[in-house]
């Protein structure tokens, strides 16, 4: 597989370590009420999608960026890849 790194261009998937579902970006607040339930869901409940899936890939043998990759699990087609950091910041409104 080739992953289109937003900074480095297409890179072989062997350079990356798969970190899992992009749901991991939405870590609950550990001090909020109901945190135990929220963390249980965060950690253990996953949609096993046939189709478009957002996931995290760590460029461990490269520039160490973690990418948010959109992949079709039925065809392995990669529909996009952005820096996970940018994705989180833009969601929280801190992005530029």
């Amino acid at each position, binding site marked *: *597989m*080739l992953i289109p790194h937003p900074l480095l261009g297409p890179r072989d998937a062997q350079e990356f370590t798969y*970190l899992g579902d992009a749901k991991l970006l939405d870590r609950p607040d550990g001090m909020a009420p109901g945190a135990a339930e929220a963390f249980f869901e965060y950690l253990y409940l996953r949609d096993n999608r046939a189709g478009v899936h957002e996931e995290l890939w*760590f460029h461990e043998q490269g520039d160490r960026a*973690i990418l948010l990759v959109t992949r079709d699990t039925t065809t*392995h*087609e990669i529909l996009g890849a952005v*820096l996970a*950091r940018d994705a989180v910041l833009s969601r929280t409104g801190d992005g530029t």
Partner: protein
Amino acid sequence: MSRLDGGLIDRSRTLSFTFDGRRYVGHPGDTLASALLANGVRLMGRSFKYHRPRGVLTAGSEEPSALVELRSGARREPNTKATVTELYDGLDAMSQNRWPSLKFDALGVNDFVSPLFAAGFYYKTFMWPKAFWEKLYEPAIRRAAGLGRLSMEPDPDSYDKGFLHCDLLVIGAGAAGLVAALTAARTGKRVILADEDFRLGGRLLSESHTLGDAPATDWLAGREAELSSLPNLRIMRRTTVFGAYDHGIYGAVERVGDHAPDASNGVRQTLWRITARRTIMATGATERHIPFANNDRPGIMLAGALRAYANRWAACPAGRVAIFTNNDDGHRTASDLAAKGVEIAGVIDTRADAQPLGDYPVFPGAVVTGSKGRLGLNSVEITQEGRTQTLTCGALGVSGGWNPNLQLASHHRGRPVWSEEKLAFLPGEGGPRGLVPAGAANGEGSTGGALSSGARAAQAVLADLGVDAAMPELPEAEDTPIKQSAFWYVPGTARAWVDFQNDVTVKDIALAHQENMRPVEHLKRWTTLGMATDQGKTSNVTALAIMAELTGRSIPETGTTIFRPPYTPVSLGVLGGGDTGAEFRPLRLTPTHEWAKARGAPFTEVGPWMRAQYFPRPGETHWRDSVDREVLATRAGVGICDVTTLGKVDVQGADALEFVNRLYCNGFKTLKVGMVRYGLMLREDGIAMDDGTCARLAEDHLVVTTTTSQAGPVYRHMEFARQCLWPDLDVQLISTTDAWAQLSVAGPHARRLLERVVDGVDISNDACPFMSCRELTVCGGLRARLFRISFSGELAYELAVPARYGGALMDRLVTLGEDLGATPYGTEALSVLRIEKGHAAGNELNGQTTAQMLGMGRMVSNKKDSIGAVLSRREGLCADRRTLVGLQAMDAGAKVTAGAHLLSDGAEERTEMDEGWISSACHSPHLGVGIGLGFLEDGARRMGEVITAANPLEGQSTRLRVVSPHFIDPDGGRVRD
């Protein structure tokens, strides 16, 4: 039968080879199969189940029968196809699956009890009693049914791997592939042309046609010259593209040295990963046979193969040959063989209107209904309008039409589509993106059709890439449409083989039908049809057609099978690509490695690192002598150990402290500049992940340490936290594990020794107390970091210097500390020291333990959110009653073993009685007995109790006293001294 005229072999040179110990000769250009045929050898193997005598069926990589063991000793390779084994001088081949000899095989008896081996027989018969399957039935069946033998020795050959990139990958260098490569390469695009054969030309090499006015070989020579001159084109001969993978990546094996006389020189095979923007699959076609009674005798082969042996290799298995065909192509073989002087006994054509292509007898509307000849064909029985007659012949060519080699196109679940016009499956939709079939692989099998198909495919692909490619000039070529009939098998009562490699007959298919194993996937598994190493290249479609006839449905209604990689078998050695043994992964050496080696230290693997285990001295005969001395010397004087391998992560930024506060479960907000704190990291699920220290060198500068084995995972975890969880924090990370050499200096004289190397810095207890850190210089200006931390329970420091000075610093400390008893120690003493002190390490942090179990439950702060804190409070984790305890042997000589299970004293050794386990154990030179650390049910409240450690694997049972895990200095006075 001697050699025919012509052929693409170099008769000026002779190659000598052996088969089953007998010496033969051949010529460069020969394969093992062609050379054997030219030497009159038809019998080449025994079949898988029935041990039937078998010869060669094909002239290519689809071969199911002529499988041999190649080479000898550790280089012996079973199940090698004689048809694609390039002959070299000294080649040594043995037949397989026979005993005692190929001509007399004792297990040939299987053939007479063949009903025992019908489809599904194993499943139905060997069911009872269940336990017999593994011990009795399966080994016996495996002995009887088989292929070649493994050498059972390590593979002595070298393999390599490499990466290639191109705009266009052309797979197959026949008529279509060559023209496609040429059309594309002329535009300047990067092209790779790969072919499994050692010679370019594909099927053209086996035909007698002319291209333009010249023989095909002349045209090939011209194209090859041009292709070789193009710098943007790479020709890869002897290269099998075996699989299509995601995003235009193809796996290929190049047989670099298999044909070379001395395979011990250089690389044997190379695994290539080819990334191609577009691919043209010009993989040709494979001929089908027509099953009839006893159709598997040596000498019966595919008609196209017979033609190939005659035209390309000037070989023919017999002087008198018959052809059985349902199409015009069979007549070409007859005509080509006749032209080479081979006598044609007749062409048996299933079609009533069959016409000869030359001067030979034709039997129209006839079929072959039997054959004779125990170890090789003597005659065939033919049936025409109900009358049978015998035709004497030493070889029979069978032609049942051609199947496109569409395997690669179905690798991504691309479904082949049936063409009633061509009576074949063609590549369909849904295959690998960017892959375009051309030539015979797309059902365009005439030479003219293949040439223009290749050119058009290249033009289309390049247009897709935005390049206009000119149509090349194509030579006049044979372009006659092949007429054929849908004739699939000759019905009869005797066995007629469909799949030669797995010994599956028409009867087996009928049985599968009768037992309702009708869907293709069931048929395959019930009969094992198409499931041998040839993946049914010569049998699948025929079997499908037979099943269609039995069910009264059409072939597309009956289904199709798709293929998976590899196209042909790939050796595990080349998939490893040389990453075996010491080359399996990079080896990391510590900065003191050479120094330790010079002192005779043995090394041990710790993750990817090699670390010194201990430093033996003259007179020490047992490793424990050295380890006990190192431990005692450290506790009495000063010991020095290389601890570089512990992970180090530099954390910098305005929010560095906030960042580590969220990572560690214990509080870090109050860590002052110049101080170090012990920290425990949890996984998000609440299990303990790793422990280490965090030193604050400056307001915005921290150094985090990790255990050796978790250095990688912890760094990954920290990057995830930084980039994915808290990207708003101002913090940067970098691993500095390899940048700094770090030496532990431990023992009551540690300070005195270090005072001799630091540059005018006060390191007294007041200036540099326990758990402090500072940057300084040593040895006259070398920058360094000093951490006053202890893993041994002694007064101890860790001194870090740039990695390249590590060896020199070790040498300096040992020399300067001679009068203080300075002693280098290795990982064994390091481990003893920490067990005696009760420090958790990798054995305790094994991914199954919690802060609570480690006795650190109260460290998990509930005043803040940190990774794992919330889920660590789950009842199942925080209420775990197994806690870390010390264990001390009751008898001085008793052995304490890590992994042993803990039981109440006198309890029966049963799983239900289990109360915990020993995680670390050693002999304590300090106490003079065996000790251990372990997790014990309700451990904290059982101090002083005597329990039993059971090690049933080694028949051991040891009585132990439960004590505090701090065997030495439980109040921690020494570390603060």
